[in-house]
């Protein structure tokens, strides 16, 4: 298990390889469909300082209001591939060091990870209660009123957030490998010529 403290520098990210198990500590920001569209089309300055050198987490949490504070109740990853058209731009524009989600991403993101020194981390889909327990503080939230709870950008502190590197900054992708393997078996089962 490799401990990563966020924000983080490029050198530490470049050391990571596909298959490494990591534990995240520090500040990261949630963002999914509406957020990525907003980040690319409007290029807001308000979130820049929060995103620089840290990671964006594809997550639409369940949160509970306690007085003036927010508490994360359920916070597993959402499917990442929907952000494929935006992710490369967002990584470059905001200086991200990583993306956390599930299911992996495509070739554009893989290229952006390599060019900018960032990684894709896979969290376990549906691990909502356990991951919410690793969220120790909610700093602030962007676009809550306009986007609603799941789509808002929540700036949070995490402790011992577990994930696995499935796409690294050297062009490696576990998802590509598993897809090729399973597709070959599919062709055999279906008697389609390989």
């Amino acid at each position, binding site marked *: 298990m490799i401990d990563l403290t966020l924000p983080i520098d490029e050198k530490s990210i470049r050391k990571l390889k596909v298959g490494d198990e990591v534990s995240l500590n520090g500040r990261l920001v949630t963002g999914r469909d509406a957020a990525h569209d907003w980040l690319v089309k409007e290029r807001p300055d308000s979130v820049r300082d929060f995103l620089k050198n840290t990671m964006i987490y594809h997550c639409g949490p369940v949160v509970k209001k306690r007085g003036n504070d927010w508490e994360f109740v359920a916070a597993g990853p959402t499917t990442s591939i929907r952000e494929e058209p935006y992710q490369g731009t967002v990584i470059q524009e905001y200086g991200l060091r990583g993306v956390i989600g599930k299911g992996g991403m495509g070739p554009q993101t893989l290229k952006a990870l390599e060019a900018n020194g960032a990684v894709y981390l896979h969290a376990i889909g549906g691990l909502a209660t356990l991951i919410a327990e690793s969220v120790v503080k909610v700093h602030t939230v962007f676009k809550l009123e306009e986007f609603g709870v799941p789509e808002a950008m929540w700036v949070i502190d995490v402790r011992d957030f*577990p994930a696995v590197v499935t796409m690294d900054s050297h062009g490696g992708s576990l998802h590509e490998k598993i897809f090729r393997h399973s597709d070959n078996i599919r062709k055999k089962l279906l008697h389609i010529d390989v």
Partner: protein
Amino acid sequence: MELDFQDHAFRAAVLELIRRASTDLAPDVVQAIQTARENEDEGSAARGVLSAILKNIERAREKSTPICQDTGTNIYVVSLPLGISMRRIEKLIREATREATEKVYLRPNAVDPVTGKNSGDNTGVLAPYIHFEEWDEPAIAVKLLLKGGGCENVSTQYALPDVTLKADRNLEGVYKTVVDAVVKAQGQGCAPGILGVGVGGDRSSGMMLAKKQFFRRLDDSHPDPELARLESRLLKDLNTLGIGPMGFGGKTTALAVKIGVAHRLPASYFVSVAYMCWADRKHSMRFTPDEVIYD
């Protein structure tokens, strides 16, 4: 036979049904995940993922918090005795849904596609989705399925024949579409998944038929021996694909395959493949004025 009951009693029973559905899995699903875990190699990523999933299920049950933050499309199948108003039941389910959202058993999940505005309470047009049936029992039966968006996005439909899959209009063709759908679903629906398959019908009835298969017990067997054979052959072969839990590789890509059939038009042969993630949140209750029995 007249069923006389109080609104608040039914509403409270539905609220408890939602809480159970969101925060706890049915025993047959937990059992299937446990068996899968034992079957994966010691020290493998697949086994690690399934262990974490089992731990999450336990914690969610203890704390009464959602197993998955995507509390999904809420699909109800309600069986009513003659004489109960469907509009009354629908109103009470909608009220229970609002209350469940306030209690954070459900995430606000209903978005207006025109304005982009989230209703904030899980109610809206066709939300929650309620299907009514009539039956002869002196009770109201409510089945509830919470189906997350990640696995709904990879649910799909094939019109046979399909040239690229070499899939003809027969059960062999059905087999090919299900294998194809599971390979395409990897990384999006959270594996290991459960496949509900609707053979026949039209595009809407076929998909509903596919989703209704999720109410079957995972360890049951189809009463038609030919379909029972197809279900077990598919399960066995899907687990040779090597996709594994969360797509990290492994022996468990699917937990179950359940097939339903409906008559089709001569011109159509639809295979509707509904994908359910491992967080297969299905629960049911039987409501009478005297008692509520949950499954």
